[in-house]
């Protein structure tokens, strides 16, 4: 017989194995970065222009050689682009070879952007090769700056791979050469328009460069994308939405602190990251309770689906919960959203408050609490006034009583009150669900000639009949006496506990 220890070891072993398998699949298979398209130029017609082949557009400058590589003929000035599928996060590798660096600026470069029907949206980022200190350097410019950032040296007459990786979520890109260390994550240009990358434009101002194999590469781990930096508003709840139909979103809203108040409406918004406008796309009414009352800190789940015509973008869901609190003389309208971190703030609107009793039907009118002393004689009037004074000083006001009732109602839904009250209801329901058949206990009194029946529930006395005890009545009476006897016995013990 196996010991419990052996059984436990088997159990731990199974889960340990599963855990290791999970780890293996998590790390052994890298996350594949996406690229808008791949191109090895091998199937293109040699000694023909790149323009017009494989959806490349631009000028008749770059050409294909016999090895399936792209080169610039002597005296050429190349500028060709190609668009593919929009990728919000991804990378691209281009193999390049240069024969020299005659210019200080990046004479040979690759720009990355979005393009539709050959039109170019402007460079969101680029890498370029130019001269610095009589050597060839790969460089770029971080968005929002005009300073050239030199990244790596490039040896002429050698093939190099240049990788670039981008992320819409963080609005950053980075570059590396020959799989060496990546550069720092740098900001893209014009981030307010950046939706991802679908196109590359390759330029060279002189016939000293050739390139080959535009491809995507696996990047180990999670892809190394940086964390999203908070933008507008300053939170981290932006979600990338790429679809234009059926956007489903759901979440929970915590009701803010309410003082004897009600929430009556909930509006859901989709916010655009850059326009910073709150365009109402859908309105969802939370199914409040029948009396439209929600509790402080109550969690309201919401879930809805909408379709909106948007370009892929970072969107977030926000909401406004309309609540009001009763004040003494006015009704204040509050709105609450998730960025307010549970604080509520008054709108500029202060509406005249209706009487509180309109909203709390159980609230008695004030005149029921004070006696009307008009028309009373001296002593009666004095007594009436004293009584009202006593009521005013000692007794709680109706509003306060109602507040107490409200609080009791709230706590009645909390543990253990709700469990206990349900248990009492359970006992009551069972006892009311029993329909006992009454025993036919009939006692007839032979000493009188009159006949009248008196129902004592368990005992029916028929003064004009004969004594008639049935088996049912005998058994039931026996159990009744037994129960009462046991109860008295318990009662004596209980009283002993008290005293």
């Amino acid at each position, binding site marked *: 017989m196996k010991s419990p220890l052996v059984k436990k070891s088997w159990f731990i072993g199974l889960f340990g194995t599963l855990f290791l398998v999970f780890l293996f699949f998590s790390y052994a298979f890298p996350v594949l970065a996406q690229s808008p398209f791949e191109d090895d130029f091998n199937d293109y017609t040699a000694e023909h222009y790149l323009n017009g082949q494989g959806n490349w557009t631009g000028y008749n400058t770059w050409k294909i050689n016999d090895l399936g590589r792209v080169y610039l003929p002597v005296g050429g000035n190349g500028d060709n682009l190609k668009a593919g599928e929009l990728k919000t996060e991804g990378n691209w590798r281009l193999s390049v070879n240069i024969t020299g660096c005659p210019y200080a600026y990046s004479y040979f470069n690759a720009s990355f952007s979005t393009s539709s029907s050959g039109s170019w949206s402007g460079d969101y980022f680029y890498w370029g090769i130019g001269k610095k200190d009589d050597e060839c350097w790969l460089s770029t410019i971080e968005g929002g700056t005009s300073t050239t950032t030199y990244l790596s040296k490039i040896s002429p007459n050698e093939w190099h791979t240049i990788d670039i990786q981008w992320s819409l979520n963080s609005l950053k890109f980075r570059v590396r050469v020959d799989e060496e260390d990546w550069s720092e994550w740098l900001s893209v240009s014009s981030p307010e328009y950046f939706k991802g990358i679908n196109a590359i434009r390759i330029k060279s101002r002189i016939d000293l460069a050739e390139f080959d194999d535009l491809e995507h590469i696996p990047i180990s781990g999670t892809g190394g994308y940086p964390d999203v930096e908070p933008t507008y508003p300053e939170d981290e709840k932006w979600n990338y939405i790429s679809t234009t139909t059926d956007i489903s979103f759901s979440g929970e809203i915590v009701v803010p602190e309410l003082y004897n108040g009600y929430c009556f409406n909930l509006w859901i918004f989709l916010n655009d990251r850059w326009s910073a406008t709150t365009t109402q796309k859908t309105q969802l009414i939370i199914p409040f309770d029948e009396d439209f009352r929600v509790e402080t800190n109550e969690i309201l789940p919401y879930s809805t689906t909408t379709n909106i015509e948007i370009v892929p973008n970072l969107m977030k869901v926000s909401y406004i919960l309309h609540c009001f609190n009763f004040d003494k003389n006015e009704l204040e309208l509050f709105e609450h959203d998730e960025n307010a971190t549970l604080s509520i703030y008054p709108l500029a609107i202060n509406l005249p408050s209706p009487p509180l009793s309109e909203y709390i039907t159980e609230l008695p009118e004030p005149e029921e609490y004070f006696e009307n002393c008009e028309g009373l004689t001296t002593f009666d009037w004095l007594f009436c006034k004293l009584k009202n004074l006593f009521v005013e*000083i000692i007794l709680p006001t109706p509003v306060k009583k109602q507040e*107490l009732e409200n609080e009791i109602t709230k706590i009645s839904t909390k543990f253990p*009150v709700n*469990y206990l009250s349900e248990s*009492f209801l359970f006992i009551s*329901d069972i006892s009311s669900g029993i329909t006992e058949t009454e025993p036919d206990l009939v006692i007839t009194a032979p000493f009188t000639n009159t006949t009248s029946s008196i129902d004592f529930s368990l005992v029916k006395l028929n003064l004009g009949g004969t004594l008639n005890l049935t088996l049912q009545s005998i058994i039931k009476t026996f159990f009744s006496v037994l*129960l009462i006897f046991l109860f008295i016995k318990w009662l004596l013990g209980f009283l002993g506990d008290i005293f």
Partner: protein
Amino acid sequence: MSLGDAILNGIIFFIQKLTGLLPKNIPFFSFETFQALLNSVENFSTTILNSISWFFPIALLFTLLKVMVYSYLALFSFKTMRFLVNLLRGAGA
């Protein structure tokens, strides 16, 4: 503010704090599960008890049970209050 209001304010404050602390459900045994369990027990019990009510005084039994439960509840409440008072006056639990 009347005296009664002041007292009620204290009680309301206590209840509000307690309401914030207390959960709605016990972990792993939600209120809905509890209700469903009681309902099923109730349906089953009602059927059984109806069948034995021919010879057994069920109504009397439940009346006595209610008295016992309320008595224990009252005793427990009294002991709780005594416990709290003892704590407040520094006499220990």
